[in-house]
């Protein structure tokens, strides 16, 4: 009994040591290869800084527009002034007719036109409903939004004043007029991204994608290089033949250790540096990232068996970064993604990683709230661990020639 116990500990100690050796070997491999250092440490350091800088203004302000004021009265000039005063819009051109607006519009110097017709003031003075036309450039969602926010705000303000005048004129005054103008109030509140910012919305998803993709491409580069240099899975075909389990665990600990540091930098430091949303509990974020990193690592190791050259991973799979980003449901809402693509998305760690991180980091959810994503990532990690074992074994059986070279036969 006692003997058996000692044996178990001896075995456990032995295997753990072996795993640590494999891990250290992998560290050596990564740090000796300048290309890998660039991907694992260079890209992960640079990308978040670059993209956070590019998007740091968050939104379009003072978007240039043209105003065609054919009414040209104090009332219409007041409206123009109010439009110009909004943070969204800036009146860059004052023109006489719509025809004149075409030139700056086609030069893309302005992104909208507001047309105040000749009879604007007359209609208001005659107690009729006046009309103002808005023409919006639709080439970008943010142009459209700036136009709608600015123009609607200014026109509604003007309308409110006129409404009070008219109520007064029909004998409804004071508090009674106020109540008639707004019998009940409504107030919209924007949560989790108060400034409706583009960076606050995009960057959290991008940051996760950066971790996912650098890890993925780094691991495919390692596998491709090993294949080119004919030392495919050298560690288990020579030193640790048949010991897939230890090899996988050892390698994954190397990537995991490296990426816990990278992750802390990208997910904890960058949002604070660039005033991106960061109301989540840092411990919850890091705990959530544990299954995420393991599932990305084993997912990448599974795929990397099919990579024959160092560079082919990037050539073949780079486009998929864009697919992963949209499939995560950060932009087009998850509730509206076609069931087929939603199911397809569950294959990739990025989908759950992006959702979970946005919820914890930007919306202050705790681990309980993201239980679904958290459990899904652990399941993925387990499944991809097994698939990696399977494909490694298949690769070994399929390449006896390569093995022979390794064994020096």
């Amino acid at each position: 009994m006692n003997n058996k116990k000692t044996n178990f500990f001896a075995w456990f100690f032995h295997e753990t040591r072996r795993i640590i050796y494999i891990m250290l070997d992998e560290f050596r491999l990564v740090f000796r290869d300048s290309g890998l250092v660039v991907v694992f440490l260079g890209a992960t350091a640079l990308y978040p800084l670059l993209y956070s800088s590019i998007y740091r203004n968050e939104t379009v302000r003072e978007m240039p527009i043209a105003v065609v004021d054919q009414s040209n009265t104090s009332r219409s000039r007041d409206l123009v002034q109010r439009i110009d005063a909004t943070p969204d819009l800036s009146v860059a051109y004052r023109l006489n007719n719509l025809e004149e607006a075409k030139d700056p519009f086609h030069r893309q110097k302005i992104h909208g036109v507001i047309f105040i017709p000749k009879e604007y003031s007359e209609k208001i003075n005659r107690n009729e409903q006046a009309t103002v036309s808005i023409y919006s450039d639709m080439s970008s969602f943010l142009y459209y939004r700036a136009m709608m926010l600015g123009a609607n705000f200014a026109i509604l303000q003007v309308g409110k004043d006129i409404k009070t005048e008219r109520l007064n004129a029909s004998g409804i005054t004071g508090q009674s007029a106020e109540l008639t103008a707004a019998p009940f109030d409504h107030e919209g509140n924007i949560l989790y991204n108060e400034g409706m910012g583009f960076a606050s919305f995009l960057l959290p998803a991008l940051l996760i994608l950066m971790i996912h993709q650098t890890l993925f491409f780094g691991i495919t580069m390692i596998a491709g290089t090993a294949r080119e240099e004919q030392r495919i899975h050298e560690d288990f075909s020579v030193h640790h033949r048949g010991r897939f389990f230890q090899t996988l665990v050892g390698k994954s600990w190397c990537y995991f250790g490296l990426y816990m540091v990278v992750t802390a930098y990208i997910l904890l430091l960058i949002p604070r540096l660039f005033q991106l949303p960061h109301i989540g509990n840092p411990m919850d974020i890091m705990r959530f990232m544990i299954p995420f990193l393991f599932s990305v690592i084993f997912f990448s190791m599974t795929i990397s068996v099919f990579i024959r050259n160092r560079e082919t991973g990037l050539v073949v799979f780079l486009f998929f970064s864009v697919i992963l980003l949209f499939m995560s449901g950060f932009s087009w809402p998850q509730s509206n993604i076609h069931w087929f693509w939603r199911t397809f998305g569950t294959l990739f760690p990025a989908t759950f990683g992006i959702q979970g991180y946005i919820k914890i980091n930007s919306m202050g959810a705790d681990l309980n709230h993201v239980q679904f994503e958290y459990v899904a990532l652990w399941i993925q990690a387990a499944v991809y661990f097994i698939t990696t074992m399977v494909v490694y074994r298949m690769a070994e059986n399929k390449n006896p020639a390569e093995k022979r070279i390794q064994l020096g036969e």
Partner: protein
Amino acid sequence: MSIIQQTINVARREIHRMLSRPIYLFSSVFVMFFCYIFFLTFFAQGLPEQLPMGIVDNDNSYVSRTLARNIDAMAQVEIVKQYSTFSEAREDMQRGKIYAIIDVAPNFEAVLLASRQPKIMYYVNDAYLIAGSLSYKDLTYISELGTAYVQQRLLQARGIVGDENLMPILQPVAIDTHLIANPYANYGIYLLNVLLPGVLQLMIIMLTVFSIGAELKEKTTAEWLGAGNQSVLAALTGKMLPYTVLFVLLGIGGNLILYRYMHYPMNGSLAWMSLATIIYVLAYQAIGIFIIGVFPRMRDAISLSAFYGLLAFTYAGFTFPIEAMPSGVQIFAELFPIRHYFKIYVNEALHNAPISYSLIYFAAMTAFLILPFLVYRRLRKQLDV
């Protein structure tokens, strides 16, 4: 042997190479087909419908139930759950189950009837900017509608009746909105006309660099040059030609899918747009040659191409306008042919601007064709191993 014959020889050899490994057709034909199918089915709805939201109805009165029913009747939003407390609803928002919460205070109806101006609060989640913005718009609209309805009743009680008398008070200034070329603010139209050419440029650069880089790496340049009878010009042109044809076909085929089959707006001329696509393909091939010329080690060239190719999605300026970026990073936009392609697309497809406005962008894209000549000598030295 004439230079044309030499070029044809190299092109013939390249076609054999393309068919010998799956990577070439995968990274062009398969990827583009996959992306077209993916994005067109992904954004098939145009605008997200039935966005899930929750209501905390502490009043549970006739008025509050009517409000809930009216919100539910809108196409874009749907009340999926009633919550008894706000914090329960907020937790579901944090779980991502709902994008908005409507909070009706207790006694809402009583306060309203007592003319003491009650308030409806709603909350939207803009961490999901698209879902949040759309919910916000719809909730504001329905609240305005509700206010207008009550106002109308109050005014009628005071003897102001008939639309011609009511409307000038309810809405003194009406807004007549024209959304140029995209009247329903279709999300697919915003994105796909640039996103899909974006994927195309990614594949063009990668394959250009890979096809030349593989020769350098595998040391097959002697054979490659041999096919062109030692003419570097023939070797390069012949090598690029099959990809030019392939990517132009994929690009123009994509235009036909978007503007003919899907009926995305094309207010200008599809011919100009297709010319833009041809120059676009050539410009990116030129950039690919330039990159591998400067960095003949394929691993460096591929990494750089990936970096540059992904930045194109940012520097096209179709999601986040270039003018809104800090001025220090704005200037780089000019270094991306996709930026000029986007401008041509806006002029042609959306604004139907006279072609004279787009000539400058055509010229800018064409200017990229100078790049291969800058690395010509360096590349020739590399090939002469």
